[in-house]
């Protein structure tokens, strides 16, 4: 009888410890996250003033970095999104279970998990080594990173479009390519947009691939054939400098990127909300 009670207590204690452990992991993780966010806010707001938007990095501003980042991210997405969605369409709509489909999907996954610094090296070797650091090279590097992301997400979304819906359109005598563009894409519109937004958020914060492609430029420039400043690279260059004002500026840049990324993620979440 007493043995029974004893094992109950041991078991119960083990269970409590387990539950406690699970809660602790979550609490610690949240605390770390909060620490990061608060530090970001505190240190980032320190140098946050109107001059960020009017001065360039050579004058303790972030104007050229912001413009460079927006330009390269924007163009990279404009370039990579159509290619990625068409690739996903190919993967989903191909009639035959051809080898090309499997190989493409696999290769896409490889590119997806390739470290971004390797992509940067790649673009360096084929473009920068033969020309010079440039915004173009940066755009290409970012496109190569964004493309597999969008392809993967688009494939998942396009796959979910009801085959019956497609058949209903085909049964009306509509050619397949029109069915895809006007029915399938429309049905999957929300998912596709979400995929693109998430990819945009991701490449906005990428630093490693830009280090060897668009490099840095402390002057304001819209010239894509020359080096271009960007927020992530600016942080890399300045965070480790022994000058407090440069460090502070780096924090501000970090805050701006994070705000942008969080806003993009939240809006993607909001767009994808269940509208039923």
């Amino acid at each position, binding site marked *: 009888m007493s043995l029974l009670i004893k094992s109950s207590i041991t078991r119960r204690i083990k269970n409590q410890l387990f539950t406690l452990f699970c809660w602790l992991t979550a609490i610690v993780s949240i605390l770390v996250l909060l620490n990061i966010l608060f530090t970001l806010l505190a240190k980032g707001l320190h140098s946050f003033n109107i001059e960020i938007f009017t001065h360039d990095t050579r004058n303790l501003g972030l104007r050229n970095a912001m413009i460079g980042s927006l330009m390269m991210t924007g163009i990279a997405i404009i370039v990579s999104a159509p290619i990625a969605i068409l690739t996903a369409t190919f993967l989903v709509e191909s*009639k*035959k*279970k051809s080898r090309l489909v499997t190989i493409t999907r696999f290769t896409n996954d490889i590119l997806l998990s390739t470290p971004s610094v390797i992509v940067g090296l790649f673009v360096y070797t084929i473009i920068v080594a033969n020309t010079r650091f440039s915004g173009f090279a940066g755009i290409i590097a970012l496109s190569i990173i964004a493309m597999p992301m969008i392809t993967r997400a688009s494939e998942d979304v396009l796959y979910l479009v*009801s085959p*019956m*819906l*497609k*058949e*209903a*359109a*085909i*049964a*009306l*005598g*509509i*050619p*397949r390519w*029109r069915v895809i563009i*006007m*029915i399938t894409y*429309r*049905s999957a*519109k929300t998912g596709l947009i979400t995929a693109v937004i998430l990819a945009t958020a991701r490449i906005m914060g990428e630093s490693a691939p830009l280090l060897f492609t668009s490099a840095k430029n402390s002057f304001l420039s819209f010239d894509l054939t020359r080096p271009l400043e960007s927020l992530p690279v600016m942080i890399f260059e300045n965070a480790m400098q022994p000058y407090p004002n440069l460090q502070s500026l780096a924090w501000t840049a970090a805050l701006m990127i994070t705000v942008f990324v969080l806003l993009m993620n939240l809006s993607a979440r909001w767009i994808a909300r269940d509208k039923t």
Partner: protein
Amino acid sequence: MSHYFEVKDLHFFYGKVAALAKIDTTIEKNKTTAIIGPSGSGKSTLLRTFNRIYELYAGQSATGKILLNGQSLLASNIDINQLRKKISMVFQKPTPFPMSIFDNITFALKLHENLTKSELSNKVEEALVQAALWNEVKDKLHSAGTSLSGGQQQRLCIARTLAIKPDILLLDEPTSALDPLSTGKIEDLIHELKKEYTIIMVTHNLRQAQRISDKTIFMADGKIVEQADTHTLFTQPKDPQTIHYIGNE
């Protein structure tokens, strides 16, 4: 004597597996023909050979002859999109396109013909009237097709196919996903449509087949077991399989 719509020695394969064997039948113009049978008997498969929609999927093939007014439909020089304009299909579940009611109907129409705005509006009204949906949606033609009830959506799908003026309507269990009231409305509709169109309908509802079809084809295991005009098939079935199936209703 040549018939309006003829199927001769049709075989259908999923890869190497035969799903339909030696199908021979004739369909008369402006009549409703029902295809009945247990699940897996090949009813839908047969229907889907008529508009060659199986060609969307790799590994599915058909041999034999399907003739419309003497012209072979399985021939390779046929324009498939034109074929599907003439022989159109309505599915089990309502499938409204993600657009307005108006656009749903004009979607295929615009691709097949070049019409002015007013001509389009007329055609939309005509189709919706024929599908017995006009009164219910005439004030909200630009709201989403998906905002309608299930029965209304299915009638929208029917209106969609009517708009392109097919000759033959293929209905694949058109009321199985609907409530009895909507089912009744659509059955009345089919009865009306017979005057202008030829209807081939798959159904697992024997009462429905009895109510609205002129000829009934009973299938089992990918073959046609018995086919006759509806009254005869249901009152004097000849094949034991038919007797068993009908008796169990």
